[in-house]
């Protein structure tokens, strides 16, 4: 067993293309295997069935793309960050790109526990009348509460939504959303959009930033 303190590495990565259809658990497995292929000296958990230690900040809903996913993993020895990035990049599928890499103190809080919110960018298929969507959204947001039932319980989307803004682009109107992303309260843009009568596949969502809490008070992305 290795008793030296591990080296904690944090990467920000984007997830695009066909990998949008790889879910959270599958993505964890994908990283485990890519890290093994990279040949980096991974720190493993102890016990009967040792696993490479890694942790992804927040599960990205299936079908979303992102430029602001965060992963922590641990190495047994210190290695030049540039080399880590290079070896990991070479082992990753083309739809994942490492955008930033840094070493993080071992005692820093976990990604999950310091995550507060996510920002999303929504674009719509040409056949969608975005003016109408915008009007429906305004009407929805004017309500006291926006109940939405998830399997066992009902959540209030009004409470989960922190901000919504429209921008005019060359492609038409696009929507920016900021929603809570904590273990207790996690907002999903697709839930909000379903209340506007939009079906999955008629729009595309890209996560553009994660907002972490107090200690850092930083917006990444």
């Amino acid at each position, binding site marked *: 067993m290795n008793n030296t303190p591990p080296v904690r590495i944090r990467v920000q990565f984007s997830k695009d293309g066909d990998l949008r259809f790889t879910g959270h658990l599958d993505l964890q497995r994908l990283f485990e*295997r890519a890290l093994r292929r990279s040949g980096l000296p991974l720190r493993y958990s102890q016990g*009967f069935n040792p696993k490479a230690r890694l942790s992804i900040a927040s599960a990205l809903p299936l079908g979303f793309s992102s430029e602001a996913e965060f992963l922590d993993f641990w190495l047994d020895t210190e290695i030049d960050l540039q080399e880590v990035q290079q070896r990991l990049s070479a082992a990753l599928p083309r739809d994942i790109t490492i955008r930033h890499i840094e070493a993080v103190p071992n005692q820093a809080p976990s990604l999950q526990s310091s995550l507060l919110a996510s920002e999303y960018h929504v674009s719509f298929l040409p056949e969608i009348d975005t003016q109408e969507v915008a009007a429906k959204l305004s009407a929805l947001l004017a309500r006291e509460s926006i109940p939405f039932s998830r399997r066992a319980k009902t959540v209030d989307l009004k409470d989960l939504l922190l901000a919504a803004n429209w921008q005019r682009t060359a492609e038409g109107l696009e929507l920016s959303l900021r929603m809570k992303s904590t273990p207790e309260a996690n907002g999903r843009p697709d839930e909000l959009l379903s209340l506007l009568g939009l079906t999955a*596949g008629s729009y595309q969502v890209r996560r553009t930033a994660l907002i972490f809490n107090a200690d850092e008070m930083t917006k990444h992305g």
Partner: protein
Amino acid sequence: MTNNQPTNINKKLEKILFSVEKPGRYVGGEHNQVRKDWNSVKTHIALVFPDIYDLGQPNLGLAILYDIVNQQPDMLAERAYSPWVDMEAQLRENKIPLFSLESKTPLNKFDIIGFTLPYEQIYTNVLNILDLSGVPLLASERTAEHPLIIAGGQACYNPEPMADFIDAFAIGEGEELILEISRAYQEWKRYPSPRLELFQALARIPGVYVPSFYEVSYAEDGTIHSVFPWMQGVAMPVKKRILARLPAPTTRFLVPNVETVHDRISVEIMRGCTRGCRFCHAGMVNRPVRERSPEEILTAVQAGLDATGYEQVGLLSLSSSDHTRILDIIREVYARFKDSRVQVNLPSLRIASFSVDLMDELKELRPGGGFTLAPEAATERMRAIINKPLDEAVILETARTIFEHGWLSLKLYFMIGLPQETMEDVQAILDLARRIKSIGKSIKGNRVRVHLGIATFIPKPHTPFQWYSIEDAQSLQSKIDLLKEGTRRADIKMTYNPPDSTLLESWLSRGDRRLGAVILQAWKNGARLDAWTERFNVTAWLDAFAACGIDPDFYTRRQRGLDEILPWDHISTGVSKRFLLTDLRLSQAGKTREDCRNTCFNCGILDAYGSLKPSEQEIYWGCP
């Protein structure tokens, strides 16, 4: 030249992928996927596993062929699988043809579509895939504009039920055949020529069966009167292909981006089996035994793990403990990988303490979970009939050793419906399982779990039992009921095949050419994904039999005459019918035959393939 429009499909896919379950099944893009420029190669081959991605992606046979074809500079292989029902509905609704995962090219744009048919319950999926690809289902309706449709795999040792749909079958081991077939196709493609010439060229390749060149006629009682090869120069019988030396194992496995049933690399350590269990199709059709050397296996495991990042390896064979150097292999695997945290699966272990020792040698590399033993029958009389001789004392001793070495869970496999089986033999399964459980309890206490897996015997082609009928449904049900009740009382978990799905496997594995019409009609009645218990629709099949005026019992509930021409007699596995018959008579007399690695019983393999046998120093063949 080619009219493929992958970008078009990509655009349409973009919409529908959001409305299907597990869309990652349909997009490809796995690590180690091979992507070649379509126009840079001459021949395009679609390799298809006719069930969903989750089951098909880990298939070792297709992984080998994919690797072999893609190593050819002038060929490419891409993959396709059955869509699940939700995706099929979307494809049909949006008029999207079924496409390959790599380049999203519609399957009808490929030169060759090759299906692997490892078992029979996926036959309707083949039809469904052809239909979704815009390829006429019947071979007789296809023209030179359509892809060549070929099939291979373990079920093809009786190709007849699928003869209407497949242009050419590859019988036996496919590593060389796939290239010989592709080269013949290339040669034919050079000049515009009728399809018949392609088929003639294919039929000249040893191991290729072109069913349209054989005319089958029937006697008044419905049995086969004759099988006549009407085309000049075609083989009769068609002799399976084997490789004298197994080629170096494939190591460039694809690493799926969504979970599949076997997320690991597989290395075949040995092909064939010398045990001679009389019910065992695989044991009869895959002769002779050929081993890979420990060095070759170790190199392949290392290369496979390096190329994939996988954390699990399966060392595959029909009887792992029978590899002459299995102890060396396991010790070296342990020495090499003890620090790299991989798990090593070693399935198909013989019932002997030696097998437990082998697992022990793996120490921390052995996977968690239970140990599996397959006595197949619970009385010594029954085990003599099926030629799996084992003393009960050895079974109990092996179970004891397993519990003593720390395993808490033991899975036991048995068959019911075997020839000459009585209720006492079935009761004995319960008694044995209970005794094993109490041994476990005496060693490990109440945490011990015993799990009973019950399979229904189906007399398979090319085995000594091929002439038998399957047991009637009522009698099978009463055996299942007895076991269910007994295991419930003893707190033993039991799983079994539903009798209906056993019927389907029996019809399709024992059928003749006339079943083509039934398969087609069943597919029209909505049958597909029949291997999925929740999807299997027995009514669709019974209606199809009725519509075709064919009695399904003719194939399953009838003892076949020893002088009858069986639907698969013109396909030769190398094991002679005379040998099978002698073995059947020995079985009826309750006599066993020992492992044939020491004593040759002249099964026919050495007559057929002995001239290929390399020297003993070079490679181990199981034949003395």
